[in-house]
């Protein structure tokens, strides 16, 4: 009896000690700055940490494969691949705050100015040859150019908006070609709704970046907001006119039509029980959507029976009276300004973004478009992507509205959505947008 009690006591003491040791060990491991270089090897190995999000298991595996190839080519460099699945930029920012940011990481164009302005990024153009940089499409480098003219990130891939249309629904409605102008887009949507009973077009409620091609194609000035005075962009007649048209698409196409007891010709994905535009289009609930290259692998994967060429096709984004404009979205690889191994990080970036890396990670994957020139005719390029690259545009507008792109996009989109739901008038919406920009930059 005594013995068992003593045993009990000892056990509880041992458990407590183990717990304490475990916590100290975990804390020690967690607080360690980085893996220390092994002392036993003759060649001193350099470690770099690389963080990205993941577009699925295939992408992760491809990255692991290419990292292995890199490590074989450069045996003195080891890469630790860290996948941050959610809230990527928030995580990266927090890791900067904590002083444990990775050496190389993804950087979305909309977030680039925040990092560049704060001096968080290493100027890639200082360490990578000009010849290497010249391979990239010039317009894709713009968001990553700092105020000093140096380049702080190299695009890893990109996507652009295009018109996706359902050929079968077009046929049923007696339409023979995709719409070429914004007026035609609305007109065709109406014809399809009347003839097939399916809404012609799906758009997001809000979505400032989806509206932008309309504004620019009507001659609106290039958007850039970093000063209270920039709110005057919303006073431009082209902006006023197109914003009214865009909001009215939903007001007239959905709300009014339903009041009249007719099939709406414009809907939001949620209106047809879909999560997003790709889902609504793949389910064949709508005949047209304007979306990006990311929709192509989604359709191939989720709707294998809905075939490109036979059932659906792509066309350029409709044009306005002045120009034809599309939006481009790009993500770069950036190097941490505080990295201890800028040379190793640069070698890694060059390997991933060079022709070999992009062939493997971008072209074969078929998720997005390669950011360097010369891969347009690669035999592995998906035909849909190839076709999207053949469209001619007067302006390819990068998703970047200034140093506070993310916040601005969210707030303006909320106001647009509010007007589309008839909560506020279009005039009130335009005033609120101006006020938002003024306030955002007045306080500094």
């Amino acid at each position, binding site marked *: 009896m005594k013995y068992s009690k003593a045993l009990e*006591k000892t056990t*509880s003491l041992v458990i407590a000690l183990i717990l304490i040791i475990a916590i100290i060990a975990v804390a020690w491991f967690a607080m360690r700055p980085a893996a220390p270089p092994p002392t036993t090897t003759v060649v001193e190995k350099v470690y770099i940490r690389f963080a990205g999000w993941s577009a699925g298991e295939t992408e992760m595996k491809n990255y692991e494969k290419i990292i292995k190839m890199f490590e074989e080519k450069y045996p003195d460099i080891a890469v630790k691949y860290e996948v941050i699945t959610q809230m990527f930029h928030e995580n990266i*920012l927090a890791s900067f705050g904590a002083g444990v940011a990775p050496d190389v990481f993804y950087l979305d164009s909309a977030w680039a100015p925040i990092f560049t302005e704060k001096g968080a990024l290493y100027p890639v153009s200082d360490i990578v040859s000009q010849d290497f940089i010249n391979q990239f499409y010039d317009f894709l480098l713009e968001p990553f150019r700092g105020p000093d003219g140096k380049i702080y990130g190299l695009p890893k891939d990109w996507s652009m908006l295009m018109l996706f249309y359902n050929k079968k629904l077009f046929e049923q409605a007696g339409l023979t070609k995709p719409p070429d102008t914004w007026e035609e887009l609305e007109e065709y949507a109406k014809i399809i709704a009347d003839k097939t009973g399916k809404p012609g077009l799906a758009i997001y409620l809000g979505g400032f970046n989806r509206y932008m091609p309309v504004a620019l194609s009507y001659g609106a000035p290039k958007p850039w907001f970093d000063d209270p005075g920039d709110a005057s962009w919303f006073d431009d007649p082209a902006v006023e006119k197109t914003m009214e048209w865009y909001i009215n698409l939903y007001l007239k196409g959905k709300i009014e039509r339903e009041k009249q007891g007719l099939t709406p010709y414009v809907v939001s994905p949620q209106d047809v029980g879909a999560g997003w535009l790709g889902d609504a289009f793949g389910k064949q609930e709508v005949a047209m959507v304007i979306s990006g290259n990311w929709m192509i692998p989604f359709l191939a994967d989720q709707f294998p029976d809905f075939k490109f060429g036979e059932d659906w096709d792509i066309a350029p984004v409709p044009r306005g009276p002045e120009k034809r404009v599309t939006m481009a979205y790009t993500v770069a690889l950036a190097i941490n300004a505080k990295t201890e191994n800028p040379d190793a990080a640069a070698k890694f970036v060059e390997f991933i973004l060079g022709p070999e890396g992009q062939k493997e990670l971008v072209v074969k994957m078929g998720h997005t478009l390669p950011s360097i020139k010369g891969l347009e005719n690669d035999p592995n390029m998906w035909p849909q992507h190839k076709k999207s690259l053949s469209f001619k545009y007067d302006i390819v507008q990068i998703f970047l509205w200034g140093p506070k792109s993310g916040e601005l996009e969210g707030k303006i989109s909320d106001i647009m959505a509010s007007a589309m739901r008839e909560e506020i008038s279009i005039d009130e919406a335009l005033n609120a947008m101006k006020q938002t920009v003024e306030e955002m930059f007045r306080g500094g």
Partner: protein
Amino acid sequence: MSKSHLFLSQKMKSLLEKRKSREALEALILISVVTCLNMVFGYFAAAFAFYLSFFKWDYIGPMEFVGLKNFMVIFKDLWRGISGAYFFQAPFYTGLKNILLYTAIVVPTQTILAMILAAFANQKIKGVQFYKVSYFLPAVTSPVIIALIFIWLFMKQGYINYMLQFVAPGFAPDWINDKSYLLYAIALVAIWGTSGHFMVSFLAAMQSIPRDIYEAAMLEGAGPIRRFIYITVPMLKPMIVYVVVLGLIGALQMFDLAWVMAGSNGGPGGAGYTMALDIYNEAFINLRPGVAAAKSIFLFALIFSVTYVFQKKYKVMVR
């Protein structure tokens, strides 16, 4: 008492003390583990948030002391909201207004419902174990999963509207996309998710109510409803206070359901926007962690004062 006896009892006493001190040591070691964790992830984080609320910071650069400027942002927002600005121009006010309404719906309903469920589960009827398990099941399911399931149920052509047509023909709101219904839909999910959890607390308290009180009441001719109102409810008072306090704390800082069901911008008309969502947006979309910290302190003060006043008013020892 003989000498040897005295000696023995003294020895026993010292042994007992020794054992006690040893036990205390063990307890201290075990408690210290949790305390350490709590210090780092609880108190340190809270203290840092308090410190941060007086600074302007962008995560990357150095912090800049701004005094009470971050709190001024809150009061400006509240003032603007009171003066009738649109929801997107006074997000914090919108969040506050919504969360107060949400709390006013959720806390009383979930408490009453939990009590009724517990009363049923406390009966000696066949298959009571099945009911207990099914009531408790939502409590062990992730709120995000629950929210996702309910989004489907709440769709315009969803199951809830299908069932409603038998009860209230013609009433088929678009729960998630209509600003007049969104908050109620979220509240309904919350009530469904938490009532089962609090039912267990009530059940435990009910089982400790002495049977003879009920027997006496039955002899006097009190029916089951009277017994519930005049015996069960008053005897449960300490547990009710406990459940309401926990409910208030949970409801006022609700984030997960709103995030999934309404989205980070609060959905149509900002109807599903909460204070916790606004704190998140301030920290990671607007990149103003200082303002986010100030807003968190406001939320803390609100939760603290509401629960303090409630506990003070219903002065009872919480078990």
